[in-house]
């Protein structure tokens, strides 16, 4: 199929005969490497500038003979390489030092030693890729569609068994006859004129855009994708490692076969105290039975702020921000009494703690919602509220 397509492309091209244009260059072929070196020396020495040498393999000494300026490509490589080093450094530093910190063998997250191989790799990678791209795009001025040298006898030889040189007609010193005699005096085995070529535009259309070609390409793509999907998922399919799936465990929504009662979740042993949950010893008892315990927390700014926060969250909806019983519930719940009453003010902290923990009549218990420390903090804050509403005159004397 592909052969046919390629043939078709060839045909399209052949249909439009190239037309010979003006003289592009005069070229010569030489049989030995030594000859080409001396020729290059001679040509560059005679002041020609627009010329080039083509050899089947890279040759030492040619750039000197051609009097080429030193290429700048090394600097491109250096720059690209150094940016590779920097990039790798930053990448590793970011990944293991900041974004995804992982403790490995107790070592520091970021360390230069294990980053060096990666820095090295990226240096090489980036400089190599950049060099190739640069070489093609900038130094060789590719991609360009055609060059008069293509499809010439000259080109055939310099890519297999001969060494060639050509001088462009654009060279300011160009003189066809002079150059020809120069070449033959240097011992050229063959001298060619090379003409510009042009193709009739109308006849050629870009075969890449041919409907059949594109269609075939997409077709092949789809077939390959389907075939590889089936090959990988069915033909060559190996069951994945899934032993972990089959273990002696109770799946959700199913009965335990191990325990008689069928529950997989077991109840803790009677009297178990969960970590961090100290049971309240006066639970359900009458107020008068509460034994006084002092507030275990110190009065500090942080504690008071914590108390205020929790009071505002848990108590203020019913008791109001100032504890005056100015509920925000608009009568949907019995309005609690003020917390500034003589009674509550003279209560010990333990009594208030009892009310919060145990609840009182319609006020529910807040044992589950508020942690012990937070309850004590609320009490400290409540004392501050009370003092602020019932300040003795001495507070205003501004001592």
């Amino acid at each position, binding site marked *: 199929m592909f052969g046919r397509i390629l043939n078709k492309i060839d045909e399209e091209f052949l249909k439009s005969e190239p037309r010979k244009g003006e003289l592009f260059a005069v070229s010569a072929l030489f049989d030995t490497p030594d000859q080409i070196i001396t020729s290059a020396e001679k040509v560059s020495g005679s002041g020609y500038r627009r010329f080039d040498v083509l050899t089947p393999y890279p040759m*030492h*000494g040619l*750039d*000197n003979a051609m009097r080429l300026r*030193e290429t700048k490509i*090394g600097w491109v490589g250096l720059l690209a390489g150094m940016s590779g080093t920097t990039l790798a450094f930053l990448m590793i530093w970011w990944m293991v030092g900041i974004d995804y910190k992982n403790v490995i*063998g*107790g*070592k520091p997250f970021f360390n230069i*030693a*294990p980053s*060096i*191989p990666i820095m090295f790799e990226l240096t090489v990678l980036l400089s190599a890729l950049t060099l190739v791209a640069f070489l093609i795009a900038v130094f060789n001025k590719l991609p360009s569609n055609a060059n008069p040298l293509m499809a010439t006898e000259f080109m055939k030889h310099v890519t297999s068994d001969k060494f060639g040189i050509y001088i462009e007609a654009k060279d300011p010193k160009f003189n066809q006859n002079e150059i020809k005699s120069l070449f033959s005096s240097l011992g050229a085995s063959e001298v060619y004129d090379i003409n510009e070529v042009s193709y009739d535009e109308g006849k050629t259309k870009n075969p890449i855009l041919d409907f059949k070609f594109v269609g075939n390409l997409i077709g092949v793509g789809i077939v390959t994708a389907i075939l590889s999907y089936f090959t990988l998922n069915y033909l060559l399919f190996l069951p994945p490692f899934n032993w972990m799936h089959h273990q002696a465990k109770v799946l959700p929504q199913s009965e335990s076969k191990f325990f008689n009662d069928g529950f997989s979740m077991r109840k803790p042993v009677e009297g178990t105290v969960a970590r961090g949950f100290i049971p309240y010893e006066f639970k359900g008892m009458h107020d008068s039975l509460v034994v006084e315990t002092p507030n275990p927390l110190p009065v500090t700014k942080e504690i008071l702020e914590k108390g205020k926060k929790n009071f505002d969250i848990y108590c203020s909806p019913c008791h109001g921000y100032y504890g005056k019983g100015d509920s925000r519930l608009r009568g949907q719940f019995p309005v609690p009494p003020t917390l500034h009453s003589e009674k509550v003010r003279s209560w010990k902290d333990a009594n208030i703690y009892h009310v919060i923990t145990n609840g009182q009549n319609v006020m529910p218990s807040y044992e589950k919602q508020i942690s012990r420390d937070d309850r004590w903090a609320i009490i400290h804050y409540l004392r501050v509220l009370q003092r602020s509403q019932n300040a003795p005159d001495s507070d205003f004397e501004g001592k």
Partner: protein
Amino acid sequence: MDNIKKLPDSVNKKGGIMLILGVIILLVAFVFEPQRAFFDYLWIYMFLVSIGVGSLALVGLEYLVGATWSTPFRRITEILASITPVLIILVIPLFFGLHDLFHWTHHEVVESDKILQSKSPYLNVEFFSIRTAFCLLLWLVFFFFMTRNSQKQDLDGDVTYTKRNITLSTVFTPFFVITITVTAVDWMMSLEPHWFSTIYGVYYFAGTVVASFAATTIAAVLLKQGGYLDPRIKNDSFYSLGTMMFGFNVFWAYIGFSQYLLIWYADLPEETFWLIHRWEGSWKFVSIALLFVHFIIPFLVLVGRRAKTNIGLLKIMAPWMLFAHALDLYWLIFPTYFKEGAGFSWPELSFPLIVIGLTMILFKVLSDKKNLIPVKDPKLQAGLEFHL
């Protein structure tokens, strides 16, 4: 080749004075601090092994890979390789110092040390001596036959000598790798008998090749500038010397870093202590200096293409690399002796004096007998025509 100058007799005189001075310093050091003198001597010996055996390997390498660029310089490398037979004499005094150098030669220590006990089938004086003798003899044999073939070719230019040497070096190269590893492990790694590193041999080998290329380079540069070399040898030929020196230096850094990274990663106390010791006290500065002197500075200086054809620059960088190798060996050997921190004083001056003095005498004596380039080697013409 008669129009080429011979080395003047003053080379012998100067070399002799340096050698004698070096030996005197070493003897005086032996009287005052015998242990230190033995460490100095081991340092000198290992450096000479580097240059001698390393050069022999380079000669073999040229035959093995069929290199032509190095043919004009091969005689110089061969003269450097002729340190190899001298090593057989040089090693003898070291055997009197085994007790001073190597911890594991002390019976009472081994008896109370589990690790040394289990290593004793390898680390015992008898086997150690057998190994050393085997290595030295092997080097001697290959040195003798390879240089003799090369020498004979100067008379008739017969290609069969080249072919014979190719066969010889094919056999020699694997043996070289084994013997140089054994030498490195025996004479240097066993200074810290508890410690081990499987890459140690390669590390020493890498340094050896750098040092041998550097020695060939500086000798070639000096001989060329003095007018003792065939004038047909052009600057372009030096390019490859610079390149090889540069390339193997990067290899050395690569191996050194590999060793470091693996030890760092595994973080096993039985491996790390060796590096930690070299990071304590003033040894830390030696370690950092080694990194810069042996790798970073030469890398930056030699990386450009033009640097390698610049004879003036090579004349600096080749001795620089030799110094770097000496520093490397110092870093490998001396922490066992200078436990508290690096030390350098007059006994260590014997090192440059003996090494340079001995090499000068060898050059004078041998260049009187031989041509300084292999005049009839079939590859010589291609080597001389080498250009960039």
